[in-house]
């Protein structure tokens, strides 16, 4: 039995990606927890942006909505959604965290439908701000459980752009240059994308799992870094701050 659960691990690893002084566009839940943890550990000057217009708040607790009052608590500005998205469109926002029901080997995401579009098995929320953030922010990160029903060969619907068909296809598509998926963080592994093919690649595996676990829980072939590291687990300090200061009511880490 580990000292932490899957969600605590993913949030901690995500927080470590956010260097001090960077800007991050976040939604509710895990992404918000990761940004808060980063602010309370390595990155006090991390600037948090909410798509609904909340700019750089001092989050008193976990917001329930990306537009609720917590997102403007002691914020420097309460702005419009268009202006918030235009900070991203202009290149001011470094990171964003996204999720989705399905992800493919190029980091494209589906949050629109499961099954056929016209007669869906499940109708999901659609893009929301995900397509916007993934198009405009410099680096897109994904936090999601490692599961072969999520890591699929082919998406039922490509809601949000990753590296599209790989190679230079994203560059050719017309999306802003220099943007794209950066890291995929799961309970079992951390993956990036091989620079040429833009295919998903394992770079580290979580303690308690091996490569085979990761590959078994993915429906497409994963590339592997020459030297795959073991993921450095959450420290006691990281866990304490996450549990006591970031999410005391266990809204996110309780799950």
């Amino acid at each position, binding site marked *: 039995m580990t000292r932490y659960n899957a969600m605590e691990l993913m949030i901690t690893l995500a927080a470590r990606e956010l260097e001090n002084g960077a800007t991050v566009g976040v*939604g*509710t*839940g895990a992404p918000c927890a990761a940004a808060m943890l980063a602010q309370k550990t390595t990155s006090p000057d991390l600037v948090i942006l909410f*798509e*609904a*217009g*909340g700019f750089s708040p001092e989050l*008193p*607790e976990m917001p*329930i*909505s*990306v*537009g*609720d*009052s917590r*997102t*403007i*608590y002691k914020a420097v500005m*309460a*702005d*419009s*959604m*268009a202006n918030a*998205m235009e900070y991203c*469109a202009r290149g001011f926002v470094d990171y964003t965290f996204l999720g989705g029901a399905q992800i493919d080997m190029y980091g*494209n995401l589906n949050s*629109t439908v499961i099954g056929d*579009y016209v*007669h*869906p098995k*499940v*109708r*999901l*929320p*659609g*893009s*929301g*701000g*995900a*397509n*916007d953030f993934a*198009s*405009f922010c410099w680096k897109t990160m994904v936090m999601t459980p490692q599961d072969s029903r999520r890591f699929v060969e082919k*998406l039922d*619907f*490509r*809601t*949000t*752009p990753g590296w*599209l068909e790989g190679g230079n*296809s*994203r560059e050719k*598509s*017309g*999306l*802003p240059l220099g943007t794209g998926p950066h890291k995929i963080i799961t309970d079992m592994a951390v993956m990036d994308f091989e620079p040429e093919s833009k295919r998903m690649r394992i770079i580290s595996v979580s303690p308690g799992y091996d490569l085979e676990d990761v590959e078994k829980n993915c429906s497409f072939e994963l590339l592997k870094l020459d030297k795959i590291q073991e993921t450095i687990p959450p420290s006691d300090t990281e866990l304490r701050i996450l549990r006591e200061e970031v999410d005391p009511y266990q*809204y996110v880490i309780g799950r």
Partner: protein
Amino acid sequence: MEVINQGTERLFMDPDPDKIRAFFHGKSRKMTRKEMDLKDAVATFVHDGDYLCIGGFGANRTPVAACHEIVRQEKKHMGLAGHTATHDMQILSAGEVYDHIDVAYVVGLEARGLSTCSRKYLESGKVQVTEWTNYSLALRLKAAAMGVSFLPTRNMMGTDTFNHSAAKTIKCPFTEKKMVLLPALSPDVSIIHVHEADIYGNCRFKGISVADIELANASKRVIITTERLISTEEIKRDPSLTKIPFHLVDAVCEVPGGAYPGTMAYKYFSDEDHLKEWLIVEKDTEKFKQFLERNIFECSNHEEYIALNGGISKMRSLRAKELLLHKEK
């Protein structure tokens, strides 16, 4: 103008700026009294088949009272801008008020989970859908507000979201870079909930504006629900605080708690227990029917709905939560 690529779904509203101008040409600019009962405002300005856009963001500063009234009056065949539509969409889906929708964010209530009612209705085949994104819908409103037929953007490219939209891709004549063009969206009617308004429709609100300023400017008719009416003298004391001017507005309805059970910044936080009740009861068709009878059809107005769910003491506790009093030492 060579179109490189285009979405294949239906464009519900005509983006022709001259037709939109022709409508505004005929709209009164007089600063006349517009306060009225919400029941009358919905009866007068919301029609079957109209394209509707709801202000706010999800369950934040959303005109929930107006959504209930639209369902009570059994409006049908409407178009809907599914612009971060969460609890508002849940209500309108319960009434099967709309049968075509521009989707940006639908079905979900953010961290709270998915609405069975909204989901089932969208999956029923009764609703025609076109896909967009949150920013794209805001831009489409902005285009109408600017009096042009489209605005360019660099999102949506390379995705099925684009393929199932009605957007078009062209090459910029200055840079040769691809740009997605989004067609203007001028809703027939929009409803926006604000903190303060005068009887002429000059409005103030605090906190995020989301897309409400673009929406108020883009819409042919605008219904305002306000936490409270204030004097025009107060509006004129500081015109820098006005977010929506009177000439855009058709009706002003004073509805205290009009965003309940959603959040109204600085006034009251969302009633998470009641929103959870919605999400659970939805799953049982029969129970949901009774729930709707009790909470919508048997209530003559929002005051009764709030009373039914805790009344003044509930609103006091939500105010305390909004103000974070539970965190004070």
